[in-house]
């Protein structure tokens, strides 16, 4: 599904990623953990195609194509989805409007007919209900005036509507209370399937209590310094990031610490 080889990238001349290697197979869920500033969000932004990063080396292959050569919108249409850490507010554009535009852009790309208004509406209503959201939010402006939890639910709603092949969740658990975390996890788990892959980027282990990853990677100072199974997340929870030693910043905060 996704193969990252020796990826290096910088922002404003400062190296952020210093050689990432990562292979994610269809059906797998990978968690990328690490202290603040380790490059976690940079990695998900680069995969989704955000501007402002200079790729200085390496390759990213997604479903056999050179992902880095595609503009952001084509990545989205071919099934890459980024759930934002900070979802953007877009006043004046209703949620349902954006959902419809996004779903139809994806359907056109894969050769499916656009959904008609009735089919679209019944589909979106079902998903809204599943995410335990109020239907009225469909007619509100995208993320405008939403609480942190509502924004994150909305990201997951978009995700389950778009049914991506590769889902990137950037700190989706941050700012969520326990109820919202459960709903968001339910949404994510509902998408797990043999033909889909997910990368969860997170600072804390908490999310992984609800979404069990197949593999956990620790990112530190722009490199993956350790990989393992789900038990690695628990180890990090107990010991913080500092024990990683070389490559990990000494003042890394402990995951799970209250803040």
């Amino acid at each position, binding site marked *: 599904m996704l193969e990252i080889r020796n990826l290096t990238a910088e922002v404003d001349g400062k190296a952020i990623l210093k050689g990432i290697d990562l292979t994610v197979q269809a059906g797998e869920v990978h968690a990328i953990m690490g202290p603040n500033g380790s490059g976690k969000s940079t990695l998900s932004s680069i995969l989704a195609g955000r501007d402002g990063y200079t790729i200085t080396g390496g390759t990213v292959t997604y479903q056999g194509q050179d992902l880095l050569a595609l*503009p952001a919108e084509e990545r989205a249409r071919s099934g890459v989805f980024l759930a934002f850490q900070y979802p953007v507010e877009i006043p004046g554009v209703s949620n349902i*409007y954006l959902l419809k535009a996004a779903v139809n852009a994806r359907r056109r790309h894969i050769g499916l007919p656009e959904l008609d208004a009735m089919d679209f509406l019944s589909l979106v209503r079902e998903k809204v209900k599943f995410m335990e959201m109020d239907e009225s939010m469909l007619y509100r402006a995208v993320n405008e005036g939403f609480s942190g939890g509502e924004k994150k639910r909305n990201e997951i709603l978009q995700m389950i509507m778009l049914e991506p092949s590769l889902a990137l969740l950037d700190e989706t658990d941050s700012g969520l209370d326990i109820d919202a975390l459960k709903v968001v996890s339910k949404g994510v788990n509902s998408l797990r399937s043999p033909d889909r892959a997910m990368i969860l980027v997170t600072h804390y282990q908490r999310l992984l209590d609800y979404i069990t990853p197949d593999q956990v990677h620790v990112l530190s100072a722009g490199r993956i310094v350790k990989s393992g199974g789900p038990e690695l997340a628990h180890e990090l929870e107990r010991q913080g990031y500092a024990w990683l030693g070389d490559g990990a910043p000494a003042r890394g905060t402990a995951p799970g610490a209250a803040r």
Partner: protein
Amino acid sequence: MSQAVTHFQGEFARLAGSLPGAGHPVLDGLRAAALARFVREGLPGIRQEDWKYTSLASLERRPLPVAAADAPEMPTLSAVVAQAVLPDAVHRLVFVDGHFAPSLSRHTLPAGVRAGSLANRLADQPDGSLPFAVDRLLAASAAPAPTGVPAAGSSLAVLNLALGADGFDLHIPAGVVIDAPILVLFVSASAETTSLPTSHIRLDAGARATVIEQHFTLHEGASLTSVVERITLAPAADLHHIKVQHANSKAQHVADTEATVAANAQLHSLVLALGGQLAREDLRITLAESGAHADLDGLYLARGRMHLDHHTTVHHASPTCTSAQDYRGILDEAGRGVFNGRVIVAKDAQHTDAQQHNANLLLSENAEIDTKPQLEIFADDVKCSHGATIGQLDPAELFYLRSRGLDETAARSLVTFAFAARALHRIDSLSPLFAALRTLLFARLPGGSALEDLTR
């Protein structure tokens, strides 16, 4: 003597005898005095601070004759309704070239509500109509207003008093609530003419209404529409006043609107300037008694070589009044915008809450905006804020949309539309009015036609 002065003197000589109420000594006197002020001052010029960025030179060079009451090209009802933001409006009053067109109008307003032609009132009861409100224009000379007092209307607005024959006349008695919007269409049907509609809106205590005023051209030539409008809200009255201007790209539109808001009354004003080669809106609101409130939303969308100028004044004359202003501009191609917003808080107007914001989106290197928010505070216990921003499209918003599969062009169109749509925040986004305004915006925004498909 200036060409415009000579021209309108000639028009006065031609038309004065046929104006409604002509022969009534007080009216005749007012009109003569109004003309005298125009002759004395001529058109406003760029040496006046208020007209620094907006030149009426083309009007000076080529003044157009005042349109006759019976337009030679009287439009058909379907041509007019096709342009209306609410084609099915039950209350529809149509003015063609500034003159009331009863054959195109209809309404089912309750007895006691007066809605129709100012000319009829002038002709029927000139005495009763003399509190014309416009005499303030006359009283004011070219001398600047004293500090802390809004200036009166310009010398151009004075022409409406001298030569204006008709306009929209609305009076809603105390306690009457009109639910359905009253749609007032000002149609410029004859090219190469000047229209001078003068409108009066009066809501007595506790009355409520929504008035949608729409100004457009049904020709492709030059024309001037110069509007004078006076709004009076008695205590606890509530008026939604929506003005949509979408004249053709050769037409000029100038408006001088003044509103007085009494105790606990509310004025909700929305001005959409979407057309015209040159359009200038002066809006002066006086919050005259305590508890009065005004909110002012505005949107100007200048492209091609359009020049759109908004001058607003909110005068907090009494304590505990509130005002909130949000004007936003989109300047594309070689479009030019001017925003000048004054908020004046009088010495005794304690506990005033006045907010003002002007946001501008520059989409082209050749576009231009001159913005000047001004606060003049003479009281000491007030909460006031003002500010202006000028920027480009937000890259974070663009990326968010692209990451959902929208291409760059669609994303740019959508973010631009979103910026504009914030001006419509008081209109129910599921209402037919919102849909009609959205269509008007889509037709004028880059890439808007693609967005229109998405809303179906």
